[in-house]
């Protein structure tokens, strides 16, 4: 049982990751997670290596602030013992490996397709024939929703099994948004193309994903981001968090028919994203982050403008959030709705808001700090009920927290340095990993290069990859009419999942 330990944004020679027999690999990674809530699987994937499949598993340890990486070489025809049969959180990773390469996992609860990728092993399986669970009973009925939904949102299919108004079971089937992101990272050779792919992984989480890509690329190239770069990226990440959290609170108000809250939170998002446009020309920060260079330096004039924007934002945000969270008709919809227990959260391996709302402290900003988060000494906001209310409370409190960080950072705007270190090109035969706490939760990008320094593997994991299962658990035994508010309280990404 061998593994190597790295820290966030570290690049190592691929040969440094020890190769185990599958049995040892199994024991090791199951052992890491068993009875230790401080460890969780941030990424587990395979990629082809001369006819075989190399499996790499990355387990983050939030207490020792490092990541344990181990590997194993298997054949596509192998039948392996499923790690999910012991620890459920490997469930989707194993399904993905099965879908991509055909490897069978013995004892897996349900080896169903994840996203019907264009490069899947079994192209006879098509998205129109997904094998849904069914329960035979005169009393039960099924409700199918999607892939196209009533609102202006992305596609995905939800299949409910209900007893009257009550949801017994929800199965979420995704894949409609699959655009071939991971294979495009390998096919497109220019850095300028790759960074635009990263920006398109999830358009509502541009900063998070582009930052993860930039960090992976820079560590492959041995480039250390100067302070001014880290500064811009920290600011952008927190601005994105403020904007989306505010928008999510608006959406929650819409779903409980609180018009004023919906309108006020909705309009409060605008000055924040308009500030991003002032800074970089795009309301969603597309174009802002580029590996190795500071496209749009944060000037003292921008700092002055940001202060103005925040000064105007804060009192209005405070006023409406106070009202929302003391209004009985809203609270009765939020409280005890869509509950996920701590035990379920741990077993699913949830991250981000979904984990923190159920009492699990998972926040990369404090456990594996990147950019300037070390200096900010971030203390995650934790709630304990695991319901819609807790997930909204987290947003309500993270917005002022992020504003405080921005205000703190404004005191020390770094000088823009003109003689820049060149970015260089990626090291050959290397592996790099980057973790970023986006507004939804932990984003993880991994890359492997070949002997020429060309990418041979690029793996993207959006927090939604873990958290869709949490939504399915949350709605059990709830009224089907509460599904929209449960769904909004998670606000998960379809395209980030489908890639």
């Amino acid at each position: 049982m061998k593994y190597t330990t790295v820290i966030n944004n570290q690049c190592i020679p691929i040969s440094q990751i020890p190769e185990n027999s599958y049995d040892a690999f199994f024991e090791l990674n199951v052992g890491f997670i068993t009875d230790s809530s401080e460890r969780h699987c941030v990424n587990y994937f395979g990629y082809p290596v001369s006819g075989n499949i190399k499996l790499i598993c990355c387990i983050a340890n939030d207490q020792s602030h490092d990541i344990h990486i181990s590997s194993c070489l298997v054949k596509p025809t192998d039948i392996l013992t499923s790690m999910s049969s012991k620890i459920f959180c490997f469930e989707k990773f194993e399904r993905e490996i099965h879908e991509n390469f055909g490897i069978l996992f013995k004892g897996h609860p349900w080896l169903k397709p994840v996203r019907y990728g264009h490069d899947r092993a079994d192209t006879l399986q098509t998205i129109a024939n997904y094998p849904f669970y069914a329960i035979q009973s005169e009393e039960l009925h099924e409700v199918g929703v999607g892939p196209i939904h009533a609102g202006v949102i992305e596609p995905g299919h939800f299949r409910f099994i209900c007893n009257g108004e009550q949801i017994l079971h929800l199965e979420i089937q995704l894949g409609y948004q699959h655009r071939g992101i991971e294979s495009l990272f390998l096919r497109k050779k220019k850095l300028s193309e790759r960074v635009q792919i990263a920006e398109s992984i999830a358009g509502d989480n541009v900063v998070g994903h582009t930052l993860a890509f930039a960090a992976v690329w820079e560590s492959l190239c041995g480039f250390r981001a100067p302070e001014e770069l880290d500064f811009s990226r920290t600011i952008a990440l927190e601005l994105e968090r403020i904007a989306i959290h505010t928008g999510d609170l608006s959406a929650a108000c819409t779903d409980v028919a609180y018009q004023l809250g919906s309108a006020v939170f909705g309009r409060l998002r605008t000055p924040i994203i308009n500030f991003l446009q002032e800074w970089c020309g795009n309301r969603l920060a597309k174009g802002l982050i580029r590996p190795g260079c500071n496209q749009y330096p944060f000037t003292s004039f921008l700092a002055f403008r940001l202060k103005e924007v925040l000064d105007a934002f804060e009192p209005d945000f405070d006023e409406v959030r106070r009202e929302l969270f003391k209004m009985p008709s809203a609270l009765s919809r939020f409280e005890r709705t869509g509950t996920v227990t701590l035990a379920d959260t741990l077993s699913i391996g949830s991250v981000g808001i979904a984990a923190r709302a159920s009492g699990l402290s998972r926040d990369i900003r404090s456990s594996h700090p990147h950019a300037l988060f070390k200096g900010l000494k971030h203390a995650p906001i934790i709630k304990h009920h695991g319901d819609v209310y807790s997930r909204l409370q987290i947003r309500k409190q993270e917005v002022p927290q992020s504003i405080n960080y921005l205000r703190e950072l404004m005191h020390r705007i770094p000088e823009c340095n003109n003689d820049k270190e060149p970015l260089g090109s990626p090291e050959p035969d290397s592996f790099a990993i980057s973790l970023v706490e986006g507004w939804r939760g932990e984003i993880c990008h991994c890359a492997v290069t070949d002997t020429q320094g060309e990418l041979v593997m690029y793996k993207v994991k959006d927090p939604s990859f873990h958290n869709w299962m949490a939504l399915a658990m949350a709605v059990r035994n709830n009224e089907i009419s509460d599904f929209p508010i449960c769904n909004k309280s998670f606000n998960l990404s379809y395209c980030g999942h489908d890639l």
Partner: protein
Amino acid sequence: MLEHIKTLYHQGRQFIPDVTVAKAPGIFRGRPVINNAKVNESDLVNICPLNAISANPVRLDLGKCSFCGECAKQFPEKINFTTDYKIAANERESLIIKEGDDAQVTINPIKVRKEIHHLFRRSLKLRQVSAGGDNSCEWELNAANNVQFDMSRFGIEFVASPRHADGIVITGPITKNMAEPLQICYDATPDPKIIVLVGTDAISGGIFADSPAIDRSFLDKYYIDLYIPGNPAHPLTIINGLLDLTRKMK
């Protein structure tokens, strides 16, 4: 109750009175202008990650451009992005900006189908289909109807079912997995109906144009009534595009 009125009062007036003349704040990248300066054209063509620029004479295709601003940054003497957000067009060729041409991108009313002016002038109900969209254009379509942009004041709204709609708005490069649902949705929309493409991904496939996971054959079958470029398209681009399509007369 009183507190609600107080909150309402504190908001002041939020809506943009005239969305046809509002200013886009900051360094917004709208319609580019290409001047006649001499540059190394092949370098310029190569710099664009989306193959949106072609040489001799230099042209820039807004249907392919992701508005990353790289070309203007490297060749400031040649390309300049203005804050003009009215860049929607009903003819694909109108999205191609030519060297030395500073004319606005406009809707050509002669090419607008008669029934659009006839039936949708005062009320246009749209069904949105995200077919691999990254949720940025979807975001801005939602924003087009928030209290600031308030598109519904013009009778333009998004509806929940294709059966209630006068047309569909497509975002995203159209993934293989969404090709069939998109077709079903289109077929379920009653005639006459329009098709609007929003965002670079929808218009040309964008960065996904040559991805093996997309299937754009749907677009070959039908006439496209409106192209709204952007990455994502700005709410003002969206609203002005739809208004010009339905209301601008010969």
